[in-house]
C-alpha cells in the first residue's frame, strides 16, 4: 500500500498539521511516511499545501505531481489540484466557499461540510480534524487509534485535554462526508 496525498487550502485552515497528523499516525502504524510542505511567505495567510505519503515500502520521491488523494479546502486549491488526481483516485473538497463543482468524471469525488460542522461544534479549530475523519472514512488507510496516538505527538502536552474533542470531530467527519461521484 502506498497512499500519496496532497492537502491544500488557505493558511490557517490547519493544512500542514493535517498532513503531519496523518504521517504521525502512519509512524504509529509502522508505515513509512514523508511530509513535504510548501514553504515561504505564502504560508502567512495565503495558500498552503503539503504532500503526505504513507506507504508499506520505502518512499522514493517526497515530491509528487500526481496523487492518489487530493484534499482541497478552497477554490484555488481545487483549480490547482483537481487535474493532479490519478485516474481512479479520490478528490475530497470542503463545500464551504467553493464556486464550482469538480469537473473530472474518472475519479471518485467526495464533499464534506466541515466548516459548517465545526461551527455547530462551537469550535472552528477542529475544522481540520473533521476533514481527517472524512478522509479516514472513505480511505481507511490508518486505524483511528493510531491517528489519535499521532495527534498526541503533534499536540503539545498542554493541549492534550483537547484530544477527546478532536476525537469527537473525527467521528463527526466520518458521519458527514458525502459521496458525489463514484467510478467503478
Amino acid at each position: 500500500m502506498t497512499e500519496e496525498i496532497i492537502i491544500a487550502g488557505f493558511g490557517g485552515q490547519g493544512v500542514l498539521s493535517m498532513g503531519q497528523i496523518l504521517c504521525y499516525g502512519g509512524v504509529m502504524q509502522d508505515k513509512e511516511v514523508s511530509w513535504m510542505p510548501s514553504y515561504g511567505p505564502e504560508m502567512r495567510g495565503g495558500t498552503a499545501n503539503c504532500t503526505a505519503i504513507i506507504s508499506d515500502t520505502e518512499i522514493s520521491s517526497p515530491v509528487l505531481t500526481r496523487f492518489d488523494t487530493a484534499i482541497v479546502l478552497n477554490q484555488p486549491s481545487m483549480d490547482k489540484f483537481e487535474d493532479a488526481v490519478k485516474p481512479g483516485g479520490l478528490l475530497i473538497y470542503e463545500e464551504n466557499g467553493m464556486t464550482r463543482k469538480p469537473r473530472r468524471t474518472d475519479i471518485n469525488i467526495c464533499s464534506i461540510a466541515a466548516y459548517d460542522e465545526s461551527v455547530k461544534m462551537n469550535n472552528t479549530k477542529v475544522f481540520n480534524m473533521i476533514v481527517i475523519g472524512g478522509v479516514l472514512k472513505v480511505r481507511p488507510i490508518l486505524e483511528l487509534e493510531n491517528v489519535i496516538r499521532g495527534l498526541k505527538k503533534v499536540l503539545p502536552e498542554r493541549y492534550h485535554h483537547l484530544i477527546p474533542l478532536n476525537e469527537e470531530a473525527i467521528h463527526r467527519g466520518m458521519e458527514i462526508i458525502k459521496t458525489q461521484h463514484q467510478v467503478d
Partner: protein
Amino acid sequence: MKELRLMKGNEALAEAAIRAGADAYFGYPITPQSEVIEYLMRENPVDRTGMQVLQAESEVAAINMVYGAAGCGKRAITSSSSPGISLKMEGISYLAGAELPCVIVNVVRAGPGLGTIQPSQSDYFQAVKGGGHGDYKLIVLAPATVQESVDFVRLAFDLAFKYRNPVMILSDGIIGQMMEKVELFEQQPRIAEAEEWATVGKKPGKDSVIVTSLQLQSEEQEKVNLRLQAKYREVEKNEVRFETYQCEDAEYLFVAFGSCARITRKAMEMARNKGIRVGLMRPQTLYPFPAEELHRLAGQVRGILTVEMNAGQMVEDVRLAVNGVTGVGHFGRFGGMIPSPDEILNALEKQFIGG
C-alpha cells in the same frame, strides 16, 4: 534502544549536531534553513551538553566565529542557504587554508542573486569546485533523506577532524523542510582534550600554537599547497561514498544526488514498469566524486542521464568520469522548479531511447 522520531530535515540536523557532541553553532537566519538555529535556541543545548549557540550579526561573522572555535580544537558548525553561503566563502577559504575542521551546512535555494527560496542544487560547483579563493577542496556530503541529514552530521565531524578540513553538507529546501521518520544516534561526548594544533593557551616549554593560512614566501606556500593536495588524494582514496539501485542489469543509468535522486528513483521505478532497464547511481559524497565506480558502470550501459536541479553542473564530473565510454546527457529544472518523475522518464526516452 533506538529512538524513532518524525522530524523536519533542518530540525533533525540541528538535533544531530547536539548529539554529535558539537561545541558550538554560529549562524544567521535565512530561508529555508532558519529552523536549524530556531531549534537549537529552543533546545538550549548549553543545558544538555554545554554546547554554545549564538546568532551572529551576519553569515560573515558566523563563519569567522566557527574559525575561532575550530582553531581551539572544538567541534564547530554553521548553517545557511545559498546567498548566505556565498558570504561565508571568504571564511571557508581561510578555514581550508588554516586546515581547520568544521561543518558547514548549505540548505540550497535557487539563484543567482536573491533568487527564490525554493529548493535547488545550483550550488554544486560552488561546493565541490572551491567557491572561495585558492586551490582547496571541501569534503561535500549530499543527504537524500532526513535520516542522512542526521547521520551525515556525525560523519561530517569525523571526516573534518580526520583530515583537518572543512566539510560541507549540501542539503536543499526539500530535505530541509520535509518530515520523515528518523532514528537518532545516542549522545556523543564533547571533545575533552584539545589536539596539539589547537590554540588553547601556550604550554610551558613548548612553542606557541599558531593558526594561520598566511605564508609570505612562495616556497613555503607551495609546500602548503602540496600538503593540501596530498591530503585531498587521501580523501579521494578513502572517502568515496555512493549508493546504486538496480544497476546489475541496467541498460541505461541515471545519476542524481540529494532530493533529486529521490525523484529520479521514482522515475526509475516507472521506467522499469514500462520495461526499460534503467539503474540509478546516487553519489553521497560529491567530493570525492565516485568517478571510478561510475566509469565502471559506464562500460555496461548505453547511455547515462544526469538529473539535477540546476542547468548542468554535476554532469561535468560525470562526463569526466565516463570519459567518452558512453553518451552522457543532462536533464534539469531550475529556479526552484522541481522535476517530476514523468519529465525525467520522458527525458531519458527522448535523449537515449528515441521516444
